[in-house]
């Protein structure tokens, strides 16, 4: 009857400029960090410096494996800057549903021929596609720097690590979407999304400190995908499936929550 995925297409049309900005940001980070590996990560001086630091600090930063290309890439990008950038994007984009409601746009949109569930799901799809793009782009840049920066990474594991990063970010976005769909408040969407991401990070950092706290890994999405090094050991398939599953379930739940209540005026 009507055209395919109108809300999704509008969202992409309106956000491609911003997506371009995020893409450039990720490229900048990768081109800044990775080419330095031969002179920093693989140098003897760096190894001596790391050895002189407190072990807890080194573990928290994920610098214990920094002498290898895989460890270096994880410590600088997947565990740090890439995680940070994609998490921020996930929180911002995940709160777009609540933002549309707060601005009054959703009221006008939903008085037209668009279903509530459709609206939420197409918004989630737009977030997912943009996340996948950023992940794929990061993977491609890493792959292209693999040789020049002497990282010696297995290309298949780059794919796994990117899937892990995107899955983790989408779980954060899903949490933000659900909070926004349930409350209609942007502050809640942003807070819950950021809260989940930060909490996951802190829990895994604590879990590294002592074997008594290792159980915290079980509740940290960050641990699900990154505890087993995706670049040096290959991504943990179970953790990856769990992260993606929770992310998709949150997105689906946001559609149900959005259907169930009055819109705010």
């Amino acid at each position, binding site marked *: *009857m*009507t*055209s395919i995925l*109108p809300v999704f297409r*509008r969202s992409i049309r*309106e956000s491609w400029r911003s997506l371009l900005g995020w893409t450039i940001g990720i490229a900048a980070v990768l081109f800044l960090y990775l080419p330095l590996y031969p002179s920093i990560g693989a140098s003897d001086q760096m190894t001596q410096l790391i050895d002189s630091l407190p072990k807890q600090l080194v573990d928290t930063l994920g610098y214990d494996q920094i002498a290898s290309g895989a460890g270096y890439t994880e410590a600088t990008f997947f565990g740090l800057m890439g995680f940070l950038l994609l998490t921020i994007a996930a929180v911002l984009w995940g709160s777009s549903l609540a933002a549309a409601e707060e*601005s*009054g*746009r959703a*009221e*006008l*949109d*939903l*008085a*037209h*021929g*668009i*279903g509530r569930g*459709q609206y939420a799901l197409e918004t989630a799809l737009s977030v997912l596609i943009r996340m996948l793009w950023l992940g794929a782009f990061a993977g491609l840049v890493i792959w292209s720097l693999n040789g020049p920066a002497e990282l010696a990474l297995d290309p298949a594991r780059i794919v796994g690590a990117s899937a892990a990063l995107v899955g983790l970010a989408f779980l954060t976005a899903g949490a933000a979407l659900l909070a926004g769909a349930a409350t209609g408040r942007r502050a809640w969407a942003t807070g819950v999304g950021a809260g989940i991401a930060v909490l996951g990070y802190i829990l895994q950092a604590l879990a590294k400190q002592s074997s008594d706290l290792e159980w915290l890994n079980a509740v940290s999405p960050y641990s699900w995908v990154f505890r087993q090094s995706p670049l040096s050991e290959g991504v943990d398939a179970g953790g990856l499936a769990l992260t993606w599953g929770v992310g998709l379930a949150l997105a689906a739940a946001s559609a149900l929550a959005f259907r169930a209540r*009055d*819109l705010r*005026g």
Partner: protein
Amino acid sequence: MTDTIEIHALHKRYGRNVAVQQLDLRVRPGTVFGLIGPNGAGKTTTLRTLVDIIRPSSGSVRVLGDDPRHGGPGLRRRIGYVPGELHLEGRASGHRLLAFYAEVSGRAGGTASVLRTARELADRLGVDLDRPVRTLSKGNKQKVGLIQAFMHRPELLILDEPTSGLDPLVQREFLTMVREARDAGQTVLLSSHVLSEIQQTADEVAVLANGRIVADGDVASLRLGSMRRVRVRIGGTDAAAVRAAFERVPGIEGVDAAPAPGGADADGIRLSATIEGAIDPFVKALAQYDVHELTVEEPDLEESVLRLYGDSSSSAGGRS
């Protein structure tokens, strides 16, 4: 033939706040129905339930024969809606915005003709659709809001304060659009707190106060336009005698007469009152005095509603 809108015992609560209570409303096909009342009377709440933006706490609502809750996108494609508070943002142009709504609400294959109608309406109302909507003034945004509701020629138009922010010339064009819609067989439900707007277009009216309908019927029978407030300054010195004389005038209320504060051009007696019904007896009574100043004004709608229906709205039942 069923009515276009049938609302029965609609009740809407927000926490402990009651926005609408026991509201019954019927809008016949092909008519213009006006919903008037002061701000906060429940107009917007009522209209929003018709497009499933909010759901009733109890009571039943049927629009074009369907429950809005279950009619879904298919039902809403048959409705044009202007929200009470229109917010348009983003860098998209008016054309883009309307193309999107034409795509989701137009009939299959009819997008081109919907957009042609949109361009015609934009010319009539005088709004530039090439500009990003966020850069438009409030009045021009409102015009875009009207266009998105009218352009796909829906069977039912639900317009919440549609003329807010429009200048008088455009308001007149809008009223023409409403009449044209009715002549084309479309049904229109519009809310307003401006009485004249309703008087010029509506076949039937309901007056809302405090979440209830306090009066309904055709516009003339509601007596809303029949109240006047008068203020005069007349010659004389005996304020009590003047008051007594005017209190005998039929339909007069709240007579207040006092000596004017004085001064070379402000002596005499100041008198103020409200008059319901014919103004002629008051004019005749006034003619016996030297009239220095005379002001006759229509009170605003809020005041009329509250004065005329304030009592009945606080008692059970609510109909006058």
